[in-house]
């Protein structure tokens, strides 16, 4: 178990080093002649107007929030799915109740019109 995770860790290190090496090699080999026009922010050829920091609407947060709740639900559903074969019908009913309760949340958000993007 621990050795498996050590391999994963090693993989992570190598997997980060190789792209990093690619960027570093490119940075060494490539020319560098900066000028203000070249470094300006890209905006379809016109001059950048106003702050680069735009205000976002709350809809992004709503979706991230619903996602968070369902993501945590998977924490519980994966053990449930693994033990389903051993525990049989009881576990299935349990899972149905669990999913049903959460679906109520989705239905609530839906009925309140919170799932509309616009």
């Amino acid at each position, binding site marked *: 178990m621990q050795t498996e995770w050590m391999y994963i860790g090693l993989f992570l290190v190598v997997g980060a080093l190789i792209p990093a090496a690619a960027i570093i090699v490119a940075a060494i080999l490539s020319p560098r002649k900066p000028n203000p026009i070249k470094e300006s922010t890209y905006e379809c050829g016109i001059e950048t107007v106003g702050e680069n920091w735009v205000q976002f609407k709350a809809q992004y*947060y709503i979706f991230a*929030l619903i996602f968070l709740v369902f993501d*945590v639900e998977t924490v519980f559903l994966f053990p449930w799915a693994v033990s389903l074969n051993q525990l049989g019908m009881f576990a299935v009913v349990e899972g149905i109740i669990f999913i049903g309760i959460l679906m109520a949340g989705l239905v609530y958000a839906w009925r309140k019109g919170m799932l509309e993007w616009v």
Partner: protein
Amino acid sequence: MIPLSWYLILSAALFAIGLFGVLSRKNAIAILLGIELMLNAVNINLVSFWRYNDPTRIDGQVFAVIVFAVAAAEVAVGLALVISVYRRRNTVVADEIDLMKW
């Protein structure tokens, strides 16, 4: 083997740093970041106690999973409150949100 004390001291350190963040940050979201650190310290404790006591009793891991759910609920509601306050009063500085103070 790593002694149990290492984990516990690390988690105590994280807890203290999180506490400092909660007490001293001005921004309400930064305060929530500090709370996340504290919850993580708790999780490290739970899992290391599970590992060092009796791994065949899985309770520690179950508690950790429940802590995940609680942390998610806390963050969701906390950040929603911050956003709601920001929309009404245009600030996220905790000191200025003193409507309920009096």
